[in-house]
């Protein structure tokens, strides 16, 4: 199938995506698309199904029903191709705690098929963002702010087109959070597509579009400011609480 | 005293609310008894012996009969269907299908009658030296009996043996009580070793630290409730030993019970000591398994005779609680010994418990002063 360079095209398509664990439905037939170059924030309380959704989208969890397509490739049948497009940063930053930042870069670079010279270049790059003494410490010994930076760097090593970030700002101080979102914008400007899950309501404003999920259902979707206006809410918090309340009543 | 009671009651509740651990604690030793009980067995089954009779006379046939008419050997005629029986014998020996090859020379019967000393060649597989020694002794015995059947040398070396306590020489009599000793120590230590480590991991240890309880009270409070559980486990193991493996209990059951309690306390103390030092549950469990099982199996006289050990290892075996209880349990169960025989051993075990509990209290106190 021919994929044109249409900027408004959907690069991620999620259709009737469902996940059931036995009798419990964690994600209930959700539908949404992500356009190329968008920054989408996935918002929802704990246990809403954000992580489960992302895991299905990355092939980590088996899809019970529905489909996920990344640049036209179905996650169920063409996972290998999907993996070449996708980048993923998991909730706990998932770097190897016993290895140093450099060693993590080397490892992840290597398994992403980067050449030796490229890995060396990348290490150079990293040393400009992270101070030298942190670089040579084991990941388990460095503060979470730096962990996050390294985790993001490592996630970008294979230069993915689409990046999913699962709660990348949890447990991180506001300063680091701000610089993180700055980095997200840099990536967007380089043409990347990003999906970020969070339960920090104010981060919704950083996105082009916000999707609110509760108990496995999408209850709200749209541009954050537009939503505020249309719902006549004074803050994201109010909007959010009301949406949840409405959903719970139903 | 009241505070101590509170700690004990709390621990009891913990125990009762943890059904999975309880099942493991009772089922594991039984399973292990089955595995070890059947796995360790030094009883020699019928030895496969190859016979090559080049003589085929009256005396050689009598000799063969002598070798065959007992429970020790299973004879195989190597001459049948083979032109080179000796080579065949050597090959089967190398393959391990035969443990020995007995070659009776052509002039055997004549030599016996003449008194010129018929030479019987026996080739024994020496790989397993224990078995080889036993086989050699069987051979000697049979030859001696054979020779005394020839009139002139009647009454060749008048030796008789009488076996006490284990008339059928079943190795299970030796191992199963030993198994009880090893397993009881392991289970007792396991029970307590996880308790403090678990509290450390969950953070509730800090709460205990700030409580008005004395360190020694805490330690004792963590040990005593498990005594009952461990004792019950011991009971289960012993009952199993008696009814499944058929080990008789010749001494007084009460005596055994008393000694078991003393031993169990030693085991619990080991667990508490490990628990105080170990940084995590994983380390605690692993260390317990290692410390209780390995030395107990190797150096307590459980399988390998202590008398064969050099002075250094002998000394180390003296530091292992299982060594003492092994003597006790074998004595009481198989020899019917009474309390008076094992006063020293009991004293040593109690001494161990005391030292361990004191050390644990001491460490615990240190921990309290400088929490991590």
């Amino acid at each position, binding site marked *: 199938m021919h994929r044109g360079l249409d900027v408004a095209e959907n690069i991620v398509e999620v259709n009737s995506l469902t996940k059931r664990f036995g009798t419990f439905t964690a994600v209930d037939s959700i539908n949404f698309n992500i356009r190329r170059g968008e920054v989408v924030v996935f918002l929802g309380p704990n246990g809403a199904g954000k992580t489960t959704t992302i895991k299905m989208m990355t092939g980590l969890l088996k899809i019970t029903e529905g489909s996920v397509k990344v640049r036209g490739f179905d996650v169920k049948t063409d996972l290998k191709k999907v993996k070449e497009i996708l980048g993923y940063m998991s909730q706990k930053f998932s770097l190897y705690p016993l290895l140093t930042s450099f060693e993590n870069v080397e490892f992840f670079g290597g398994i992403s*098929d980067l050449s030796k010279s490229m890995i060396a270049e990348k290490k150079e790059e990293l040393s400009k963002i992270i101070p030298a003494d942190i670089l040579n410490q084991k990941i388990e010994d460095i503060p979470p702010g730096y962990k996050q930076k390294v985790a993001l760097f490592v996630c970008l090593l294979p230069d993915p087109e689409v990046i999913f970030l699962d709660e990348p700002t949890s447990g991180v101080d506001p300063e680091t959070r701000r610089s993180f979102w700055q980095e997200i914008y840099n990536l967007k400007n380089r043409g990347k597509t990003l999906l970020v899950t969070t339960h920090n309501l104010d981060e919704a404003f950083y996105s082009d579009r916000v999707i609110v999920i509760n108990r496995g259902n999408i209850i709200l979707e749209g541009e954050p400011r537009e939503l505020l206006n249309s719902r006549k809410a004074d803050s994201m918090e109010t909007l959010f609480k009301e949406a949840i309340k409405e959903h719970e009543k139903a | 005293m009241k505070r101590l009671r509170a700690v004990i009651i709390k621990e009891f509740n913990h125990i009762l609310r943890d059904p999975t651990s309880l099942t493991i604690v009772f089922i594991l030793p039984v399973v292990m008894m089955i595995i070890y009980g059947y796995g360790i067995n030094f009883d020699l*089954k019928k030895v496969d012996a190859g016979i090559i009779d080049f003589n085929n006379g009256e005396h050689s046939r009598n000799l063969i009969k002598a070798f065959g008419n007992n429970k020790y050997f299973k004879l195989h005629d190597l001459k049948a269907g083979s032109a080179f029986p000796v080579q065949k014998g050597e090959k089967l020996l190398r393959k391990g299908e035969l443990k020995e090859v007995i070659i009776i020379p052509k002039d055997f019967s004549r030599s016996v009658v003449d008194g010129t000393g018929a030479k019987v060649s026996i080739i024994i597989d020496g790989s397993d030296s224990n078995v080889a020694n036993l086989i050699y002794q069987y051979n000697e015995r049979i030859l001696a009996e054979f020779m005394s059947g020839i009139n002139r040398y009647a009454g060749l070396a008048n030796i008789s043996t009488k076996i006490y306590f284990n008339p059928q020489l079943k190795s299970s009599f030796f191992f199963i009580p030993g198994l009880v000793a090893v397993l009881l120590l392991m289970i007792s230590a396991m029970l307590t070793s996880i308790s403090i480590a678990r509290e450390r991991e969950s953070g509730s240890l800090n709460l205990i630290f700030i409580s008005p309880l004395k360190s020694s009270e805490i330690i004792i409070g963590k040990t005593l409730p498990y005594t009952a559980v461990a004792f019950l486990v011991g009971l289960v193991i012993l009952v199993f030993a008696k009814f499944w493996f058929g080990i008789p209990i010749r001494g007084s059951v009460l005596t055994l019970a008393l000694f078991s309690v003393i031993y169990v306390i030693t085991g619990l103390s080991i667990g508490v000591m490990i628990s105080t030092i170990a940084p995590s549950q994983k380390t605690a469990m692993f260390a317990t398994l290692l410390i209780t099982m390995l030395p107990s199996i190797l150096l307590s006289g459980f399988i390998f005779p202590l008398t064969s050990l050099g002075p250094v290892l002998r000394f180390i075996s003296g530091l292992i609680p299982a060594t003492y209880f092994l003597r006790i349990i074998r004595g009481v169960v198989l020899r019917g010994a009474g309390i008076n025989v094992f006063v020293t051993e009991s004293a040593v075990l109690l001494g161990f418990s005391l030292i361990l509990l004191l050390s644990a209290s001491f460490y615990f106190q240190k921990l309290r002063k400088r929490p991590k």
Partner: protein
Amino acid sequence: MRLLYLVKKEFIEIFRQREILPFIFVSPIIQIVLFGYVVTTDIKNVPVEIVNYSNSATAERIIRRINSSPLFNVKKISASEADPKLVLKKGKLSAVILFRDSDSGNLTSSMPEVQVLMDGVDSNTSSLAAGYVAGIIRRYFLEELKNMGIKMPVENRTLIRFNPELKSINYMGPGIVALLLTILSLFLTSLSIVREKVQQTMDTLLVSRLSPVEIYIGKAMPMMLIGIFNMIVGTAVVVLWFGIPVRGNMIYMLITAIIFLCALLSYALFISTVASTEQQALFFSWFSMVTFIMLAGLFTPVENIPAAVRFFSDIDPVRYLIKIIREIFIKGNGITYFYKDLIILAGIATVVLSVSLFNFRRLVRK
């Protein structure tokens, strides 16, 4: 290749776990030396008491021989003992040997009547000890007869093959190396996948371009290398320290070890995928190890294992490893003697590997 990076990472992680390091390097050596000295069926210094009711000089000469033998530790020589059974009951003696004057009036009248009262509890030691006593006495008797010019009708010419010194370490030593290989590999490997789960790096691995098979091999490879390293070190220690003869071709040993490790590591990885905490993994490993070793014929001949449990011994890879190692070391047998065992071992390895890999891939896609 991607795999190399994974192997390198595994090695870094192993060496950074400070609690594990001594296990890999130091404890194998200590274990072998310790086991080597302890795991012996040779008997020495067996405690006995001799009661001499007889008046003959012969008895005294025989008693002296027993006394000077390193096999026995004669605790007491007395002229009478009221209740030998009571003495044995205390459990401090293996046997009480009674010497009485013989009342048969023939050639052998100078020989005393000997009765060995055995403590049957340690059946093995007691039987051997009684046998040695009988041996000492018979030898004396034969010498006496020789001095009188009488020849024995039958002479026993015994040849010991394969282990002429009859040292039990020659038999146990190779088995201990096998033991070592088992224990270490099992524990370390069973932790490897669990560690990823606990560290929560498993997802990152799975999302990467590594296929499940690559991940599996990447985990097994370092352990295989460590296992072989330990085998070499262990063999060297056992040969150099204890002086065990090496009669066979060591190449076969290497091949056997590799096939064995395939089976064992697959099993350990299976445990690793099933366990959810490191504690569980260690527990399962330990329990499996104990079972494997008990049923492998290390301490006890395989023939002694009763039929009901025999099946487990038949699928126990350690059993085949021990058998083959012993054949190579002690008998110096070539592959024609143990190829059947090797094939069975390879078969077990294949089955376990398949099941383990299948389970791993199944787990990867929940």
